[in-house]
């Protein structure tokens, strides 16, 4: 089985996994970083969203062999104290219902704001439409992103 050295949440970690193992399962099974969620496995729901070099990707469809020198950030590493502006805005709006999709939503939102500090409605919608919330919290997600953009 091949081994990889990956930089995850600013730490170098050595792992052993089949080359085609999706990053999602490396995070969840090898590194016990279970904040990143499994929803569909085919890049349709966004529950597994993490950052690779700052961009939001679907980790269920990203093989570990493609990781190279890239830096991975997961929900656990988005901020040291859970106080990233997006996380704070999420708490302010009490966005979550069941909460299952929210790590992925937050990661998509944080990547959007890193690239576009002041997104309009259309930019928010287009960045977030890959993330399903089965509980229907889209309105609050949108409001929280706008608030996070201001801070």
């Amino acid at each position, binding site marked *: 089985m091949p081994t990889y050295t990956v930089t995850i949440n600013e730490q170098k970690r050595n792992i052993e996994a089949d080359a085609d193992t999706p990053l999602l*399962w490396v995070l969840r099974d090898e590194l016990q970083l279970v904040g990143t*969620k*499994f929803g*569909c496995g085919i890049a349709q729901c966004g529950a597994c969203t993490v950052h690779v070099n700052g961009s939001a990707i679907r980790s269920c469809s990203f093989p570990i062999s493609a990781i190279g020198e890239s830096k991975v950030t997961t929900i656990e590493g988005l901020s040291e104290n*859970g106080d990233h502006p997006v996380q704070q805005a*999420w708490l302010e709006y009490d966005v*979550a219902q069941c909460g299952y999709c929210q*790590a992925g939503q937050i990661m998509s939102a944080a990547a959007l704001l890193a690239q576009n500090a002041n997104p309009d409605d259309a930019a928010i919608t287009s960045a977030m439409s890959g993330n399903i919330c089965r*509980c229907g919290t889209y309105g609050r997600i949108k409001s929280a992103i706008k608030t996070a953009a201001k801070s």
Partner: protein
Amino acid sequence: MNSATQNLASKLKTSLGRRSFLKAGAAAGGGLMINFSWGVVPTDAGDAAAGMIPDQPFELNAYLLIASSGEITAMVPNPEFGQNLMTSMPMILAEELDADWKSITAKQANYDARAYERQFTGGSQSIRRAWQSLRMAGASARHMLIQAAAQQWQVPAGEIAAKNSTLTHAKSDKQSSYGAMAAAASQMPTPAEVNLKDKNSFKLIGKSRHNQEGQKIVTGQPLFGIDYQAEGMKIAMIEHPPAFGKTIESANLDEIKKMSGIVDAFIFESMKPDYQKNYFDTNAFPRLIAIVGDKTWQVMKAKKALKAQWKDLSSRTETMNAFGREVSVTIPGGLENTTDHGKKMDQALAGKLDTLREDGDVKSAFDSAETVIERTYRAPYLAHNTLEPMNFFAQITGDGVHVAGPLQAPVFIQDTLASRLGIVKDKIHIEFTRMGGGFGRRAYSHYLVEAAVIAKQVKAPVKLIYSREDDMTMGIYRPSYTVRIKAALDKDNKLVAYHVSGVGLAEHCVHENRFPAGAVDNYLAEGKAIDSNITIGAFRAPRSNFMASAEQSFLDELAEAAGEDPIDFRLALLERAKNNPVGDNNDYDPARYAGVLKLVREKSDWDAMPNTTHKGVAAYFCHNSYAAQVITVKRREGEPKVDKVYSALDCGIVVNKDSAINMVEGAVIDGIGNALFGEMTFTNGVPDKKNFDRYRLIRMNEMPNSIDVHFVDNSIDPTGLGEPPFPPVFPALANALYQAQGERLYQQPYFKPKKPS
């Protein structure tokens, strides 16, 4: 009388005869411990409800702990799937206790067969049942704290004020925190009767408090069943037959077992052949293939490499224990198709149905009517699609079993599990995890038994995970229904006859005593279920989730035929049901029904909307609450797009306002999504959609521009909120789409993808 001017304080007994609902004592480590009965208490109406309470001592299954540090812990005995009980339940306690909100934390209780008969999240009942228990516990603790302070300070109890976790006696300038007085309070006698607050003076209830689990959710803490970890844990997945009506014959298990990281692969049964199913044991596939390995991905790869032979099942009859009543269920053999389903339902509708209720003389009313309108409405199967797929952890422990994961109704699975493992119920330990969505699906927890059987076979702790494909294609769908409604108007355009006929696979959705029963002199309700081997189950607001569509779309059409405003038309019927009801079995309160319609009319500015606005209205009653929705639709690039939604709810007292609004917003979006896109179809028994690439769910770009939620302000004890706002969304949307498109909609889903030209 206006409740705002009425004093709504009340008294509550803490025992009835030999049955005591509350016991107080010293907590280990100092402090006051109140054990209380959750879900079974006398009502403040007196002993009227006493008949419903078993005449024997029973376990006090919940507790409130005030530690000497001042920390207050409330144990919440309900599984959480997003209704925010972990916040709203402690709010009720804190209100009666006058506690500092910041010092309260809620804990999730684990399952105990003897103690938690009502440990069930579903049917929007959680708050309703817990309401009096929590108030009783909070008020009792407050009473005992005050008594202790009165004794210590030698002052009359009536002069002591309790506020924000502090006791004060103004005259003598004495003060104590709850924590400091807790040990002394534990020595006070348990009150036989406590005063509950005047509902008009609530300070916390009706306000908004942040979700207590919020921080853990936004930082990705392991809260869910799928996150469960244990020493030596293996990962298991299952494979079920690709089609309803088939079962497993054999598979290339030896090849699978040789694959890298695979520990075992075998065929197993999750139920013994002679086991009598209960109502929540629905399961089309009790015979499965298990693949167990070290890592999820390796197990997934082995699952892909699986080659199995399947065989057709023949028709069979099972007996089922439906809440103590033995019923016989026929499961036809054969591979079913959606097109045949439609034909079967039409055939059934053309034949004889079971009469559920008849008032007046329906036949002559139709014969002599001025106008008769008849319409037929069709609903597809729906998959629940909780975002967290089904999963469960299981570990065999000596003569028992420890299981952990997401489920809505532990009470219904314990016998199934005990019987399958051959253990006694007392040896089952169920640990609840947060649920990544429920919507009714997790009341059918066959996956828990599957995990336990696999764990037993491989002699290791196991976490069973369904793939999305497993989750979506294993059944327990919202049934497919057809409803035909026929109505007669007289020459003054008054509704004089109403005939509703419902059929469905494998249940129909007619509630014979619901509106407009009671509002029409000549009324007939009929229904019939059609056997099918595709399994069905409860789905957010069962049956109501389609009956509302049929009935409220139909009433819209009737109002139009009568030349009346759709709200006026409904209000006139409700007025009739209030003043001079037909029959005495009507299960709704016409005044509260009318109340939500009036509120939504006012808040949406219905009467002042310009004629160019495409608007639709609908109202429905279910799960003890009333909901009305107004939806407006705009055209965007030729396609209609939902613009604004106004919701009006009467669910009694709202405990946590913002969380209640969030839940209604969610129900609105879920309703719009399912109305537009929700659909599962079958070809030769095979579900046509397996994942979110083909099963379309609503996304952010399709959500309405605004959702404006309002609650009727009253002092009725809280009723359900998770389900009631959902059903009327569908018809309000259908009625608005009709305005925008000029065509009535009779078949869900309403969105029809454009055929490529």
